[in-house]
Each structure stands twice: as C-alpha cells, then as structure tokens.
C-alpha cells in the first residue's frame, strides 16, 4: 500500500489513487483531489453530494454508495450528477470524498 501527500497531509492510497482510510480525509484534501479531477472549485451542490457520500459510507461499512443510492439519498438526479462530476460521478465523488472505489456488482 502506497502513501502520498495531499494538501500537506500524508495519507494511504491504493494503486488506483483511492484513499484507503476515510478517517485520514479532510476538506482540504477533497479540494485538492477535486482539482486533480478537473474541478477547480467545489460548489455547494457538489459539497452536498460529497457530504452525503461520507455519511452514507459510514452506514455501508465503509463502502462507497452506488449512483442510485446517491440519487435516492440526495434528490440530485443522475443527469445533474453527471454535470456536477463529469464522466463517472460515482467513482469521482468516491475519490474526492476519500472513500474506496465503488465496487462494481456481483
């Protein structure tokens, strides 16, 4: 398992760059990862989704919520999610929120 420094803090990441310990996360880290993902500034709507995913993950044994869980839980439509976090919102939010990669399905 590798570590890297994000926003001045050393955190653990897996080989795909997802943080592996949600407790190491903070808002500055979110801002920096978002910038890497091409999102220069995080808006209120984007924070709403990020905060929801952090909270949902705590109820899901640390797993990232699926796209449908996000839309059901926040009331944000899938279409809006794709404009807030272009190209793969579930994965992108998970990365920014310091959660694991959303598992596909079984």
């Amino acid at each position, binding site marked *: 398992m590798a570590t890297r420094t994000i926003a001045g803090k050393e955190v653990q990441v897996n080989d795909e760059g997802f943080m592996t310990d949600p407790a190491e996360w903070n808002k500055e880290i979110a801002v920096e990862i978002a910038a890497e993902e091409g999102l220069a500034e995080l808006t209120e709507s984007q924070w709403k989704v990020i905060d929801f995913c952090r909270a949902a993950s705590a109820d899901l044994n640390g797993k990232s919520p699926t796209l*449908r869980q996000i839309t059901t839980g926040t009331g944000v439509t899938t279409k809006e*999610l794709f404009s807030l976090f272009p190209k793969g919102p579930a994965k992108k939010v998970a990365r920014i929120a310091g959660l694991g990669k959303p598992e596909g399905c079984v």
Partner: protein
Amino acid sequence: MKQLLVLGAGTAGTMVVNRMRRLLDAEEWMITIVDPHEIHYYQPGFLFIPFGMYSRNDVVKPKRDFIPIGVEMIKAEADVIEPEQNRVKLTNGRTLSYDFLVIATGTQTRPEETPGLMESEWQRSIFDFYTVDGAVALAKHLRTWQGGRLVLNVVENPIKCPVAPLEFIMLADWFFHERGIRDEVELIYATPLPGAFTKPVASRYLGEILERKNIKVIPEFLIERAEPDDKKIVHYDESEVEYDLLVTVPLNMGDDLIARSGLGDELNYVPADKHTLLSKAHDNIFVLGDAAAIPTSKAGSVAHYAVDCWSENFLRYIDGLELLPTFDGHANCFIESGFDKGLLIDFNYDVEPLPGHFPLPGVGPFSLLQESEMNHWGKMMFRWIYWNTLLKGKELPLPARMSMSGKRSG
C-alpha cells in the same frame, strides 16, 4: 400450531417449502406459500429461446407440481407485510399470520424505467430476453433479421444472473455464424461495468474471449434514454451508441410489495445478514433468493446454496439456538459461450472467480474460466437438475460452501 409463511413460489420459495416440509414436524408446523402466478418458469432457459434452441414449452411447468403435500398453496399476491403484527395482507383481502416469514419474491425487469424503451419500437427493434414473452418475440425477429449492428445494453446493476448478457452476446456470435451472416453483423456489448464482468480475473479472461469472437465491449456506458426513432441509446454524459437492433437488460427491481411494506432499499431489496439471511430489521423474517440485498450474485445456484445453509440454521433457531454464519455467498455459474462450448465460474463473498477445475482438483470434469464442451453439457443438464432435483429441495452431491481446492490464483 406454528406457521411458516413463504412469499413467492419461484426458485427459492419452492426449495424452501420442499426442504422444510421434510424437516419440520407436521403436527407442529403449518407451511403456507403464496404466489399470484400458476406457472413456474425455468428462467435460465430464456437465454436459449432467442436462438431457437429452446421454445416456450421447454421452460414452463405448473407451480403446483413442485409444491409438496402438506404445504398450503394460496394463489394470491401479497399486498403488504405488517411485521409489527406478524401478518401479511393479500390483495384479495385475506390476512395471513405467521410465526416466521420467508420473503422470496425475487426481482423483476422494469423497462418502463428507462425512457424510450417501451415506446413505439418495443418488440420491433428493441427487445429483452429476461421475460419469456420478450425472448419469444426476439426469436421470431432473429429468424428473419438480415444483419446490421446489434447492441446489447445492460441498464444498471445489479441484475439477476450477471453472466446472462455475456452468454447472450456469445451465443449471438455463434448463431449468426451458423446462419452464414456473421460478416453482416456487428456485435456490441454496452455495459455500465468497467469491463466484461464484475470481478477482475474473470473480467480479463472473459474480455479476451469476447475479443477473439470479435465482440466489442463499450464499458461504463450508463443509459439515460433510448431514442427509438433515431435508433440510438444515449448516455447520461450525452455520448451515443447507434444500433439496428437493441437488446436491453432493463433495470431489475424487487417487487413493489417490499416498498409498500417499507422493508426495502432503493431497489426494493430487503437488507439481510449476508451469512444468515435474517432480515436486519426483524428477527422472525428471513430473505432468500434474489429478493435479498446481499453482496452476491442473484442466481438460482446461489439461492440453492443459501437454502442449504439456511434450512439447517433455521432448525437451530426454532430450538432457541443462535444462528451460525454459514452462508458464504457461494455462486457457481455455467457460462454458455457458443459453438457447443461453455465456461464455469465458482466464487463467494471473499474469493473471486479463478481458473482451475471443478469440483475435483486437476480432474474436473468441469474447467473453470476455460471454454470446454463439458461445461456446455453441464449447462444443458442443468435444466433437468433444476426441475428434478433442485426445486424439490433434494441435496446435490456438492458442498454448499465454496472450496478452494482445484483453483489457481489469476
């Protein structure tokens, strides 16, 4: 008398009542099963209908034939479960009380949830094969189809039998080859997954097989809508895939009974303990088969292994002992790959599908993650086993829990 009530007489519910009628004392326990439909479908057989290998007759039998003497069968739909009162209201007005409830209402396809699918072109240039009517309509269409671009699209996961789309597209390759028009047909598999399958090693093996068969995978495709007049499907990010023939695996959801009863998640699946299948909310409700929100495949083989583990556990539970965490998520799926060949995958919650042999190390007779004729015959034999052994709740000569012997890592 105590009452065991089972909702849904599909694969899981039928196995449960057969097993339990043998194991529970008839002087002490009443067993009742409720289902609005009279026909039991062998759903794995739907896959073969579009290619003329099976007909409707091959996949239907009366549900009654599989319900043992001593089990009351009620032909009705469950309307709402009232867990606080330990009772279920039926849509016909009747109310049934229970001591223990088994929810086995499965999952269904919802094409109406994706705009464009069920409009003017439904069963003209847009088909499904997850229902018997869809599969029969598609068979008729394929008999005279002259070729073009066939796009298979999975709307959203989870779906029951997650390997069925792969099997469909590989059988399509074989079918058009046999008809001498394979060169006229472009085969495309547009999936929301990042690759051919859900788990990495299997995804790599299967991805390579698809490539050899000249089947193109479009990964991470999330359909927002179909535009039936322009014959294209549109992603949420506005990218498009054009088709001449669209085969959809629509959104899968649990029955609305679950939503009406306030027992489900966002897809109407009932949260349950993944090792004991006990509902997370109620200690006298169990969830078996596709209806459960647990992280394993929604498949008949999984339901079979789960019922195996559950039935022993249930006997402990009614004696006042605690439930043991016995179910390991074991799934075992034949994957038909065309040209009389097939693959087999065997996995559970912790171990992804790996290459090797099954069930005997080095011997098989089935090979894991490799195409072989033996695997094809395994798949074809499965129908006989399903009707004659599985549904009747008989033991199969295979362990319910997954074994690592015979498997190689990646």
